[in-house]
Protein backbone atom coordinates (compact mmCIF):
# COMPACT_ATOMS: atom_id res chain seq x y z
CA UNK A 1 0.00 0.00 0.00
CA UNK A 2 2.99 2.23 0.39
CA UNK A 3 4.11 2.38 -3.24
CA UNK A 4 1.28 4.50 -4.70
CA UNK A 5 1.85 7.03 -1.94
CA UNK A 6 5.60 7.22 -2.43
CA UNK A 7 5.49 8.08 -6.10
CA UNK A 8 4.62 11.81 -5.97
CA UNK A 9 6.85 12.56 -2.95
CA UNK A 10 9.80 13.75 -5.07
CA UNK A 11 7.88 16.32 -7.18
CA UNK A 12 5.91 17.41 -4.10
CA UNK A 13 9.11 18.08 -2.19
CA UNK A 14 10.42 19.96 -5.22
CA UNK A 15 7.30 22.09 -5.22
CA UNK A 16 7.74 22.68 -1.50
CA UNK A 17 11.30 23.80 -2.23
CA UNK A 18 10.10 26.36 -4.77
CA UNK A 19 7.36 27.64 -2.43
CA UNK A 20 9.87 27.80 0.43
CA UNK A 21 12.28 29.78 -1.69
CA UNK A 22 9.59 32.24 -2.78
CA UNK A 23 8.44 32.64 0.84
CA UNK A 24 11.98 33.34 2.01
CA UNK A 25 12.41 35.85 -0.78
CA UNK A 26 9.08 37.47 0.17
CA UNK A 27 10.02 37.70 3.84
CA UNK A 28 13.60 38.98 3.60
CA UNK A 29 12.66 42.45 2.25
CA UNK A 30 9.37 42.55 4.23
CA UNK A 31 11.21 41.99 7.51
CA UNK A 32 13.74 44.60 6.52
CA UNK A 33 16.75 42.22 6.42
CA UNK A 34 17.59 43.70 3.03
CA UNK A 35 16.46 47.11 1.85
CA UNK A 36 13.34 46.55 -0.33
CA UNK A 37 14.72 49.17 -2.70
CA UNK A 38 17.45 46.67 -3.62
CA UNK A 39 15.45 43.46 -3.35
CA UNK A 40 11.70 43.85 -3.84
CA UNK A 41 9.51 41.07 -2.42
CA UNK A 42 8.83 38.05 -4.62
CA UNK A 43 5.16 38.89 -5.10
CA UNK A 44 6.04 42.29 -6.56
CA UNK A 45 8.62 40.85 -8.97
CA UNK A 46 6.30 38.03 -10.06
CA UNK A 47 3.58 40.61 -10.66
CA UNK A 48 5.85 42.58 -12.97
CA UNK A 49 6.98 39.35 -14.63
CA UNK A 50 3.41 38.39 -15.53
CA UNK A 51 2.35 41.87 -16.57
CA UNK A 52 5.40 41.92 -18.89
CA UNK A 53 3.86 39.03 -20.79
CA UNK A 54 1.19 41.39 -22.12
CA UNK A 55 3.72 43.92 -23.45
CA UNK A 56 4.81 44.04 -27.07
CA UNK A 57 8.17 45.58 -26.20
CA UNK A 58 8.94 42.68 -23.88
CA UNK A 59 8.27 40.11 -26.60
CA UNK A 60 10.33 42.17 -29.04
CA UNK A 61 13.28 41.95 -26.64
CA UNK A 62 12.77 38.19 -26.23
CA UNK A 63 12.58 37.93 -30.01
CA UNK A 64 15.88 39.78 -30.49
CA UNK A 65 17.66 37.60 -27.95
CA UNK A 66 16.26 34.38 -29.38
CA UNK A 67 17.11 35.40 -32.96
CA UNK A 68 20.71 35.91 -31.95
CA UNK A 69 20.64 32.60 -30.09
CA UNK A 70 19.07 30.54 -32.88
CA UNK A 71 21.05 32.03 -35.77
CA UNK A 72 24.33 31.82 -33.86
CA UNK A 73 23.70 28.24 -32.82
CA UNK A 74 22.74 27.21 -36.36
CA UNK A 75 25.82 28.83 -37.91
CA UNK A 76 28.28 27.42 -35.37
CA UNK A 77 26.73 23.95 -35.37
CA UNK A 78 26.77 23.58 -39.15
CA UNK A 79 30.33 24.87 -39.40
CA UNK A 80 31.45 22.58 -36.57
CA UNK A 81 29.77 19.51 -38.09
CA UNK A 82 31.43 19.99 -41.47
CA UNK A 83 34.86 20.80 -40.00
CA UNK A 84 34.53 18.05 -37.40
CA UNK A 85 33.84 15.43 -40.07
CA UNK A 86 36.75 16.63 -42.22
CA UNK A 87 39.29 16.97 -39.42
CA UNK A 88 38.11 13.93 -37.50
CA UNK A 89 38.37 11.52 -40.41
CA UNK A 90 42.05 12.24 -41.03
CA UNK A 91 44.74 11.39 -38.50
CA UNK A 92 47.07 13.93 -40.06
CA UNK A 93 44.57 16.77 -39.80
CA UNK A 94 43.64 15.77 -36.25
CA UNK A 95 47.24 15.93 -35.11
CA UNK A 96 48.03 19.08 -37.05
CA UNK A 97 45.06 21.05 -35.77
CA UNK A 98 45.20 19.85 -32.15
CA UNK A 99 47.50 22.56 -30.79
CA UNK A 100 45.63 25.35 -32.59
CA UNK A 101 42.24 24.14 -31.34
CA UNK A 102 43.51 23.75 -27.80
CA UNK A 103 44.89 27.28 -27.96
CA UNK A 104 41.85 28.99 -29.47
CA UNK A 105 39.23 27.14 -27.43
CA UNK A 106 39.96 28.60 -23.97
CA UNK A 107 40.01 32.19 -25.26
CA UNK A 108 36.88 33.61 -23.63
CA UNK A 109 34.48 34.83 -26.29
CA UNK A 110 33.76 37.97 -24.25
CA UNK A 111 37.31 39.03 -25.10
CA UNK A 112 35.91 39.62 -28.58
CA UNK A 113 33.41 42.20 -27.30
CA UNK A 114 35.60 45.24 -28.12
CA UNK A 115 36.27 43.83 -31.57
CA UNK A 116 32.55 43.17 -32.14
CA UNK A 117 31.73 46.76 -31.16
CA UNK A 118 34.31 48.15 -33.56
CA UNK A 119 33.30 45.94 -36.46
CA UNK A 120 29.53 45.76 -36.16
CA UNK A 121 28.40 48.30 -33.57
CA UNK A 122 25.18 47.65 -31.68
CA UNK A 123 23.76 45.20 -34.20
CA UNK A 124 22.79 41.58 -34.43
CA UNK A 125 26.16 40.80 -36.03
CA UNK A 126 27.93 41.68 -32.78
CA UNK A 127 25.79 39.18 -30.88
CA UNK A 128 26.36 36.60 -33.58
CA UNK A 129 30.15 36.97 -33.44
CA UNK A 130 30.15 36.18 -29.71
CA UNK A 131 27.56 33.41 -29.87
CA UNK A 132 29.17 31.66 -32.83
CA UNK A 133 32.68 31.78 -31.35
CA UNK A 134 31.55 30.44 -27.98
CA UNK A 135 29.29 27.65 -29.16
CA UNK A 136 31.45 26.54 -32.10
CA UNK A 137 34.07 24.87 -29.86
CA UNK A 138 31.51 22.97 -27.82
CA UNK A 139 30.17 21.28 -30.94
CA UNK A 140 33.52 20.83 -32.69
CA UNK A 141 35.14 19.06 -29.72
CA UNK A 142 32.19 16.70 -29.39
CA UNK A 143 32.30 15.99 -33.15
CA UNK A 144 36.00 15.14 -32.93
CA UNK A 145 35.37 12.77 -29.99
CA UNK A 146 32.47 11.23 -31.88
CA UNK A 147 34.35 10.62 -35.11
CA UNK A 148 37.27 9.15 -33.15
CA UNK A 149 34.85 6.75 -31.45
CA UNK A 150 33.85 5.00 -34.71
CA UNK A 151 34.30 1.25 -34.35
CA UNK A 152 37.36 0.25 -36.42
CA UNK A 153 35.75 -3.09 -37.36
CA UNK A 154 32.65 -1.35 -38.74
CA UNK A 155 34.79 1.18 -40.56
CA UNK A 156 37.02 -1.52 -42.10
CA UNK A 157 34.00 -3.62 -43.06
CA UNK A 158 32.46 -0.65 -44.86
CA UNK A 159 35.76 -0.11 -46.63
CA UNK A 160 36.01 -3.73 -47.78
CA UNK A 161 32.47 -3.54 -49.15
CA UNK A 162 33.72 -0.57 -51.17
CA UNK A 163 31.30 1.92 -49.72
CA UNK A 164 32.12 5.34 -51.11
CA UNK A 165 33.54 7.99 -48.85
CA UNK A 166 30.16 9.70 -48.66
CA UNK A 167 28.32 6.48 -47.87
CA UNK A 168 30.85 5.60 -45.17
CA UNK A 169 30.19 8.94 -43.53
CA UNK A 170 26.45 8.51 -43.99
CA UNK A 171 26.10 4.96 -42.66
CA UNK A 172 29.09 4.40 -40.35
CA UNK A 173 30.50 7.68 -39.04
CA UNK A 174 27.29 9.68 -38.73
CA UNK A 175 25.29 7.27 -36.50
CA UNK A 176 28.27 6.91 -34.13
CA UNK A 177 28.84 10.64 -34.00
CA UNK A 178 25.22 11.72 -33.61
CA UNK A 179 24.94 11.16 -29.83
CA UNK A 180 28.17 13.14 -29.29
CA UNK A 181 26.88 15.85 -31.62
CA UNK A 182 23.60 16.13 -29.72
CA UNK A 183 25.48 16.49 -26.43
CA UNK A 184 27.62 19.17 -28.04
CA UNK A 185 24.58 21.04 -29.34
CA UNK A 186 22.86 20.83 -25.95
CA UNK A 187 25.93 22.35 -24.24
CA UNK A 188 26.28 24.90 -27.04
CA UNK A 189 22.63 25.93 -26.71
CA UNK A 190 23.15 26.86 -23.06
CA UNK A 191 26.38 28.74 -23.81
CA UNK A 192 24.76 30.51 -26.76
CA UNK A 193 22.00 31.85 -24.52
CA UNK A 194 24.58 33.17 -22.04
CA UNK A 195 26.40 35.03 -24.81
CA UNK A 196 23.22 36.24 -26.52
CA UNK A 197 22.13 37.84 -23.24
CA UNK A 198 25.63 39.09 -22.40
CA UNK A 199 25.92 40.86 -25.74
CA UNK A 200 22.81 42.84 -24.87
CA UNK A 201 24.05 43.52 -21.36
CA UNK A 202 27.56 44.74 -22.21
CA UNK A 203 27.47 45.90 -25.83
CA UNK A 204 23.87 47.11 -25.83
CA UNK A 205 22.58 45.14 -28.81
CA UNK A 206 18.77 44.93 -28.61
CA UNK A 207 17.40 42.11 -26.47
CA UNK A 208 16.80 41.00 -22.91
CA UNK A 209 20.34 41.79 -21.76
CA UNK A 210 20.00 45.37 -22.90
CA UNK A 211 16.61 45.67 -21.16
CA UNK A 212 18.20 44.44 -17.93
CA UNK A 213 21.00 47.00 -18.22
CA UNK A 214 18.45 49.75 -18.92
CA UNK A 215 16.24 48.71 -15.99
CA UNK A 216 19.26 48.66 -13.72
CA UNK A 217 20.59 52.07 -14.72
CA UNK A 218 17.06 53.50 -14.65
CA UNK A 219 16.44 52.27 -11.12
CA UNK A 220 13.54 50.00 -12.16
CA UNK A 221 14.66 47.35 -9.69
CA UNK A 222 11.50 45.24 -9.83
CA UNK A 223 11.61 45.16 -13.61
CA UNK A 224 15.28 44.15 -13.51
CA UNK A 225 14.52 41.14 -11.28
CA UNK A 226 11.54 40.21 -13.46
CA UNK A 227 13.79 40.23 -16.56
CA UNK A 228 16.42 38.14 -14.77
CA UNK A 229 13.67 35.62 -13.99
CA UNK A 230 12.71 35.70 -17.67
CA UNK A 231 16.21 34.72 -18.76
CA UNK A 232 16.07 31.83 -16.29
CA UNK A 233 12.76 30.66 -17.74
CA UNK A 234 14.23 30.88 -21.25
CA UNK A 235 17.20 28.82 -20.10
CA UNK A 236 14.89 26.14 -18.67
CA UNK A 237 12.78 26.07 -21.86
CA UNK A 238 15.89 25.75 -24.03
CA UNK A 239 17.17 22.90 -21.85
CA UNK A 240 13.84 21.07 -22.03
CA UNK A 241 13.58 21.64 -25.77
CA UNK A 242 17.10 20.33 -26.37
CA UNK A 243 16.46 17.23 -24.24
CA UNK A 244 13.26 16.60 -26.23
CA UNK A 245 15.06 16.92 -29.58
CA UNK A 246 17.85 14.69 -28.25
CA UNK A 247 15.36 11.98 -27.30
CA UNK A 248 13.61 12.19 -30.66
CA UNK A 249 16.73 12.09 -32.84
CA UNK A 250 18.39 9.38 -30.74
CA UNK A 251 15.30 7.24 -30.11
CA UNK A 252 17.13 4.34 -31.80
CA UNK A 253 20.22 4.69 -29.58
CA UNK A 254 20.71 2.35 -26.63
CA UNK A 255 21.34 5.13 -24.12
CA UNK A 256 17.90 6.62 -24.83
CA UNK A 257 16.12 3.28 -25.29
CA UNK A 258 17.49 2.23 -21.91
CA UNK A 259 16.22 5.44 -20.34
CA UNK A 260 12.70 4.85 -21.58
CA UNK A 261 12.54 1.29 -20.24
CA UNK A 262 13.80 2.06 -16.75
Amino acid at each position, binding site marked *: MKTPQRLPVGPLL*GLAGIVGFLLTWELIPRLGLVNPAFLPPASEVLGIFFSNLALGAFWAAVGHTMTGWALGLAISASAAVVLGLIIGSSTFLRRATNSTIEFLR*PIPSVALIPLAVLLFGFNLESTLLLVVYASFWQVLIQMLYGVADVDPVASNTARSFRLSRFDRIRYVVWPTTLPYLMTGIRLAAAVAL*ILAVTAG*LIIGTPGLGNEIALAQSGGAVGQMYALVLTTGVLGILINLGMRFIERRTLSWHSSVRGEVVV
Partner: protein
Amino acid sequence: MTLLKKFAYLIGLPALLIAIWWVSTLGTTNFFVPKPGVLADKLVTVWVGDRFVQDVVPSVTRLIIGVLLAILLGTVAGVLIGTTRWLRSLLEPMLEFFRAIPPPVLIPVLMLLIGINDQMKVAVIVSGCIWPVLLNTIEGVRAVDGTLSDSAKTFRIDGFNRLRYLVLPSASPQIMAGIRQCLSIGLILMVISEMFASSEGLGFTIVQFQRSFAIPEMWSGIVVLGLIGVTMSFLFQWTERRILGWYHGLREVEHAE
Protein backbone atom coordinates in the same frame (compact mmCIF):
# COMPACT_ATOMS: atom_id res chain seq x y z
CA MET B 1 56.37 9.17 -33.02
CA THR B 2 59.69 10.93 -32.80
CA LEU B 3 60.04 14.07 -30.77
CA LEU B 4 60.76 16.10 -33.91
CA LYS B 5 57.57 14.94 -35.57
CA LYS B 6 55.57 15.75 -32.44
CA PHE B 7 57.07 19.21 -32.41
CA ALA B 8 56.24 19.72 -36.08
CA TYR B 9 52.62 18.78 -35.47
CA LEU B 10 52.48 21.11 -32.48
CA ILE B 11 53.95 24.14 -34.20
CA GLY B 12 53.05 23.52 -37.87
CA LEU B 13 49.58 24.98 -38.20
CA PRO B 14 50.10 27.95 -35.84
CA ALA B 15 53.27 28.88 -37.74
CA LEU B 16 51.41 28.62 -41.04
CA LEU B 17 48.54 30.79 -39.78
CA ILE B 18 50.90 33.45 -38.45
CA ALA B 19 52.79 33.41 -41.74
CA ILE B 20 49.56 33.95 -43.69
CA TRP B 21 48.61 36.77 -41.32
CA TRP B 22 52.09 38.31 -41.71
CA VAL B 23 52.05 38.20 -45.50
CA SER B 24 48.47 39.41 -45.87
CA THR B 25 49.07 42.48 -43.68
CA LEU B 26 52.40 43.37 -45.32
CA GLY B 27 51.17 46.00 -47.75
CA THR B 28 47.85 46.95 -46.19
CA THR B 29 47.12 49.50 -43.54
CA ASN B 30 43.84 48.02 -42.33
CA PHE B 31 42.86 49.90 -39.22
CA PHE B 32 41.32 46.92 -37.46
CA VAL B 33 43.92 44.24 -38.13
CA PRO B 34 47.32 44.96 -36.60
CA LYS B 35 50.51 43.52 -38.03
CA PRO B 36 51.90 40.58 -36.05
CA GLY B 37 55.11 42.47 -35.31
CA VAL B 38 53.28 45.50 -33.95
CA LEU B 39 51.03 43.26 -31.87
CA ALA B 40 53.98 41.39 -30.36
CA ASP B 41 55.68 44.69 -29.62
CA LYS B 42 52.54 46.09 -27.92
CA LEU B 43 52.10 42.90 -25.98
CA VAL B 44 55.43 43.53 -24.30
CA THR B 45 55.37 47.33 -23.99
CA VAL B 46 51.77 47.54 -22.75
CA TRP B 47 51.49 44.59 -20.44
CA VAL B 48 54.94 44.02 -18.95
CA GLY B 49 55.60 46.30 -16.00
CA ASP B 50 53.21 48.57 -14.11
CA ARG B 51 50.08 47.54 -15.93
CA PHE B 52 50.69 43.91 -15.12
CA VAL B 53 50.66 44.72 -11.40
CA GLN B 54 47.79 47.21 -11.70
CA ASP B 55 45.39 45.34 -13.96
CA VAL B 56 46.34 41.73 -14.52
CA VAL B 57 47.24 40.72 -10.96
CA PRO B 58 44.01 41.99 -9.31
CA SER B 59 41.88 40.43 -12.05
CA VAL B 60 43.58 37.07 -11.79
CA THR B 61 43.50 37.19 -7.97
CA ARG B 62 39.74 37.75 -8.01
CA LEU B 63 39.36 34.97 -10.53
CA ILE B 64 41.36 32.50 -8.42
CA ILE B 65 39.55 33.39 -5.19
CA GLY B 66 36.15 33.17 -6.89
CA VAL B 67 36.83 29.86 -8.58
CA LEU B 68 38.32 28.27 -5.45
CA LEU B 69 35.36 29.43 -3.35
CA ALA B 70 32.93 28.09 -5.94
CA ILE B 71 34.71 24.72 -6.02
CA LEU B 72 34.78 24.50 -2.22
CA LEU B 73 31.14 25.54 -1.70
CA GLY B 74 29.98 23.50 -4.69
CA THR B 75 31.57 20.23 -3.56
CA VAL B 76 30.59 20.59 0.11
CA ALA B 77 26.99 21.47 -0.71
CA GLY B 78 26.95 18.89 -3.49
CA VAL B 79 28.06 16.06 -1.20
CA LEU B 80 25.52 17.15 1.39
CA ILE B 81 22.64 17.38 -1.09
CA GLY B 82 23.69 14.29 -3.02
CA THR B 83 23.77 12.04 0.05
CA THR B 84 20.51 13.29 1.58
CA ARG B 85 17.61 12.09 -0.49
CA TRP B 86 14.87 14.42 0.83
CA LEU B 87 17.13 17.46 0.60
CA ARG B 88 17.83 16.62 -3.02
CA SER B 89 14.13 16.33 -3.93
CA LEU B 90 13.46 19.55 -2.07
CA LEU B 91 16.16 21.63 -3.77
CA GLU B 92 16.60 20.11 -7.22
CA PRO B 93 14.00 22.18 -9.16
CA MET B 94 15.33 25.39 -7.59
CA LEU B 95 18.90 24.51 -8.43
CA GLU B 96 17.99 23.66 -12.02
CA PHE B 97 16.35 27.06 -12.34
CA PHE B 98 19.35 28.92 -10.94
CA ARG B 99 21.65 27.03 -13.25
CA ALA B 100 19.49 28.06 -16.22
CA ILE B 101 19.88 31.79 -15.49
CA PRO B 102 22.71 33.14 -17.66
CA PRO B 103 25.31 34.13 -15.00
CA PRO B 104 26.15 37.59 -16.45
CA VAL B 105 22.63 38.89 -15.68
CA LEU B 106 23.47 38.49 -11.99
CA ILE B 107 26.05 41.28 -12.30
CA PRO B 108 23.48 44.11 -12.13
CA VAL B 109 21.70 42.28 -9.30
CA LEU B 110 24.84 41.81 -7.23
CA MET B 111 25.89 45.39 -8.02
CA LEU B 112 22.70 46.53 -6.32
CA LEU B 113 22.98 44.18 -3.36
CA ILE B 114 26.71 44.45 -2.66
CA GLY B 115 27.78 47.64 -4.39
CA ILE B 116 30.59 48.12 -6.90
CA ASN B 117 33.67 46.63 -5.26
CA ASP B 118 35.96 43.63 -5.21
CA GLN B 119 33.53 41.53 -3.19
CA MET B 120 30.88 42.05 -5.87
CA LYS B 121 33.23 40.80 -8.59
CA VAL B 122 34.22 37.75 -6.56
CA ALA B 123 30.53 37.13 -5.77
CA VAL B 124 29.69 37.30 -9.47
CA ILE B 125 32.34 34.69 -10.25
CA VAL B 126 31.18 32.43 -7.40
CA SER B 127 27.51 32.77 -8.32
CA GLY B 128 28.19 31.70 -11.89
CA CYS B 129 30.84 29.03 -11.27
CA ILE B 130 29.16 27.17 -8.46
CA TRP B 131 26.37 25.55 -10.52
CA PRO B 132 28.34 23.19 -12.74
CA VAL B 133 30.41 22.06 -9.72
CA LEU B 134 27.37 21.68 -7.47
CA LEU B 135 25.16 19.81 -9.93
CA ASN B 136 27.96 17.56 -11.16
CA THR B 137 28.92 16.71 -7.58
CA ILE B 138 25.31 15.83 -6.77
CA GLU B 139 25.16 13.58 -9.85
CA GLY B 140 28.52 12.00 -9.02
CA VAL B 141 27.62 11.33 -5.39
CA ARG B 142 24.31 9.80 -6.44
CA ALA B 143 25.98 7.51 -8.95
CA VAL B 144 28.24 5.77 -6.40
CA ASP B 145 28.43 2.11 -7.39
CA GLY B 146 25.82 0.12 -5.46
CA THR B 147 28.05 -2.91 -4.86
CA LEU B 148 30.87 -0.75 -3.53
CA SER B 149 28.44 1.11 -1.33
CA ASP B 150 27.07 -2.16 0.07
CA SER B 151 30.57 -3.53 0.66
CA ALA B 152 31.46 -0.37 2.54
CA LYS B 153 28.38 -0.83 4.65
CA THR B 154 29.27 -4.46 5.38
CA PHE B 155 32.71 -3.44 6.55
CA ARG B 156 31.07 -0.75 8.67
CA ILE B 157 32.91 2.01 6.87
CA ASP B 158 30.84 5.06 7.50
CA GLY B 159 30.99 8.73 8.38
CA PHE B 160 34.17 10.46 7.36
CA ASN B 161 35.94 7.35 6.11
CA ARG B 162 33.06 6.51 3.81
CA LEU B 163 33.27 10.02 2.40
CA ARG B 164 37.05 9.94 2.08
CA TYR B 165 37.48 6.47 0.59
CA LEU B 166 34.22 5.80 -1.23
CA VAL B 167 32.09 8.83 -2.06
CA LEU B 168 34.69 11.42 -3.04
CA PRO B 169 36.87 9.11 -5.19
CA SER B 170 33.92 7.70 -7.12
CA ALA B 171 32.41 11.15 -7.63
CA SER B 172 35.73 12.77 -8.56
CA PRO B 173 35.51 12.28 -12.36
CA GLN B 174 32.16 14.07 -12.34
CA ILE B 175 33.42 16.75 -9.97
CA MET B 176 36.40 17.41 -12.24
CA ALA B 177 34.07 17.66 -15.25
CA GLY B 178 32.14 20.32 -13.33
CA ILE B 179 35.32 22.18 -12.43
CA ARG B 180 36.38 22.20 -16.08
CA GLN B 181 33.14 23.95 -17.05
CA CYS B 182 33.40 26.29 -14.10
CA LEU B 183 36.86 27.56 -15.13
CA SER B 184 35.75 28.96 -18.48
CA ILE B 185 32.63 30.50 -16.95
CA GLY B 186 34.82 32.09 -14.27
CA LEU B 187 37.08 33.71 -16.85
CA ILE B 188 34.07 35.04 -18.78
CA LEU B 189 32.55 36.49 -15.61
CA MET B 190 35.82 38.04 -14.49
CA VAL B 191 36.04 39.97 -17.77
CA ILE B 192 32.37 40.95 -17.88
CA SER B 193 32.21 42.14 -14.28
CA GLU B 194 35.12 44.47 -15.05
CA MET B 195 33.66 45.66 -18.33
CA PHE B 196 30.37 46.46 -16.66
CA ALA B 197 31.49 48.40 -13.64
CA SER B 198 35.09 48.95 -12.71
CA SER B 199 38.00 51.33 -12.78
CA GLU B 200 40.76 48.77 -13.11
CA GLY B 201 41.32 45.23 -14.28
CA LEU B 202 41.85 43.53 -17.60
CA GLY B 203 38.29 43.83 -18.88
CA PHE B 204 38.15 47.53 -18.04
CA THR B 205 41.50 48.26 -19.68
CA ILE B 206 40.62 46.45 -22.90
CA VAL B 207 37.37 48.41 -23.21
CA GLN B 208 39.31 51.64 -22.55
CA PHE B 209 41.66 50.82 -25.42
CA GLN B 210 38.72 50.07 -27.69
CA ARG B 211 36.97 53.35 -26.81
CA SER B 212 40.10 55.36 -27.47
CA PHE B 213 40.68 53.45 -30.74
CA ALA B 214 44.04 52.10 -29.56
CA ILE B 215 43.50 49.05 -31.75
CA PRO B 216 46.85 47.22 -31.46
CA GLU B 217 46.72 47.73 -27.67
CA MET B 218 43.17 46.34 -27.62
CA TRP B 219 44.28 43.29 -29.59
CA SER B 220 47.19 42.76 -27.22
CA GLY B 221 44.70 42.74 -24.33
CA ILE B 222 42.63 40.10 -26.11
CA VAL B 223 45.81 38.05 -26.52
CA VAL B 224 46.56 38.39 -22.79
CA LEU B 225 43.06 37.07 -22.01
CA GLY B 226 43.66 34.21 -24.39
CA LEU B 227 46.97 33.41 -22.69
CA ILE B 228 45.26 33.37 -19.28
CA GLY B 229 42.60 31.02 -20.66
CA VAL B 230 45.21 28.70 -22.15
CA THR B 231 47.30 28.69 -18.97
CA MET B 232 44.24 27.82 -16.90
CA SER B 233 43.31 25.05 -19.28
CA PHE B 234 46.82 23.54 -19.11
CA LEU B 235 46.97 23.86 -15.32
CA PHE B 236 43.62 22.11 -15.11
CA GLN B 237 44.68 19.28 -17.41
CA TRP B 238 47.84 18.79 -15.37
CA THR B 239 45.90 18.70 -12.09
CA GLU B 240 43.28 16.42 -13.55
CA ARG B 241 45.93 13.95 -14.66
CA ARG B 242 47.38 13.97 -11.13
CA ILE B 243 44.02 13.54 -9.42
CA LEU B 244 42.30 11.25 -11.90
CA GLY B 245 45.35 9.32 -13.09
CA TRP B 246 44.00 6.12 -11.57
CA TYR B 247 40.66 6.66 -13.31
CA HIS B 248 42.07 7.25 -16.79
CA GLY B 249 44.36 4.26 -16.31
CA LEU B 250 41.36 2.15 -15.41
CA ARG B 251 39.45 3.37 -18.45
CA GLU B 252 42.37 2.57 -20.74
CA VAL B 253 42.58 -0.96 -19.36
CA GLU B 254 38.83 -1.44 -19.74
CA HIS B 255 38.81 -0.15 -23.31
CA ALA B 256 41.80 -2.21 -24.36
CA GLU B 257 40.02 -5.35 -23.11
